[in-house]
């Protein structure tokens, strides 16, 4: 692990990548994207970022 790795930033990057993949999959009609699914997904993504950020600061 790089010495200066920021886990919260890394988690944020991964969440953003997953959102981008979902958008592409929806555009390709592979995985549907609806408000009903998007809202909890965004909440979960933000939660993961905040959780990692909080856990990192506790260390």
């Amino acid at each position, binding site marked *: 692990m*790089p010495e200066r790795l*920021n886990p919260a930033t890394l988690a*944020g990057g991964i*969440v953003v990548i997953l*959102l981008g993949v979902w958008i592409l999959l929806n555009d390709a009609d592979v995985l549907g994207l609806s408000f*009903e699914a998007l809202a909890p997904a965004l909440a979960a993504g*933000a939660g993961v970022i905040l959780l990692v950020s909080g856990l990192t600061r506790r260390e």
Partner: protein
Amino acid sequence: MARHVAPRDPGGMTDTPPTPTALPRLERPRDGRMALGVCAGVAKHFNLDPTLVRVVFAVVTFLGGVGVLAYVAGFLLIPEEGEEQPILRGGGGRHKGGQLVTATILIAIGAIAIFHRIDFSFHGDVGWGVVLIVVGGYFLFRLGGGDAPAFSGFGRTAGATSAPDLPPTTWGAVAPDASDDASRDDTTIAAAPGVAPVDDATAETEVVPPATDPDPARRRSSRRATVTVLGGVLIAIGAAVAAASIAGADVSWQAAGGALVIVAGVGIAAGSAFGASPAIVVPAFLAAALIAASQAAGIELKGGAGERSYHPTTVADLRGEYRLGAGDLRVDLRDLRLPPGVTRVKATLGLGELVVRVPDGVGVRVDAHAGAGNIRLFDRDDQNGFDVDASDARGLTSPRILEIDADVGLGDLSVRDSTSTLEPR
């Protein structure tokens, strides 16, 4: 991290620091902010009412979208209260990650704007694309070791160096951080009388040891590798989009947006290895959420923005599809002389209000969809919510049938005839 703010007197001569300006330091305050503190910071700096500044930002946002860019630039360039440097700091090593992410996002937006001609309502997407690519290239150039002048924050502590290649100043400086580049001035910095140390952990230390980079070769190698990988990703995406454009393939803006989000995510993940601040995730996450939400609503941004009214009277004047990205779209077919048979008309609006008026004495079949919003067909009750579908048919025994396929991503959709008494919302 120990930092002293102290004047420097390398040659035994004492220079008088410049007189501080009367204006307070331009920074994003932690209190009193509505979002990221840009407007509050500008208002505080110029002693203005924050509400006035916010209104100005809102106005220029609606006048072509420049306000959004200005706000993002302010977020990146104005340091937060208590921070010495803005997120986007040139030269230093600590914020290389943020710089890298910003460069990646700017170049990706520019490439997509040029090759895909997304209508960002900037009235000249190619020009904006070129500007974004040039700015992004500037940062990549600096990241790759170029010697372009460093970006500096506004109103920082006097004399705080933002680039390691700048000559040492003879007055107030920030002690080099151990994580910064090794080329920083080696002169020891003594705390001046009356200047309180920032970090009490080193309050008793009068001399700060010179900064050293434990492995500059490794750092440069890692930097080159990252730039190479991201450059390859950008070139691949740009080439793919350009090839699709040349081949005439219809690449949706959603696909382009998804690719942009992925590139941003890769840049952020890569930037995390360089210590990029988690704050850089916020704009990317919001942009991704916005694109995803617009896609969930089925918003199609092609077609421009504004108010469009169409009033065809003959089939020759009739378009197969009426499209608008955002605004008010009104298609008045009341005076249209339909030929026998079925005539199909499609109306698509990304964001706003769509009104279709149909002629009397013909059969009408309507299929309407709203990603999020309200649908009113003739005098029927409104249907609203998310993913709303509605249909209606009347007078289908007529030899002349008008089929309407209407779609609104986010907003109101209404189809009216001469008997409709309810006015469009």
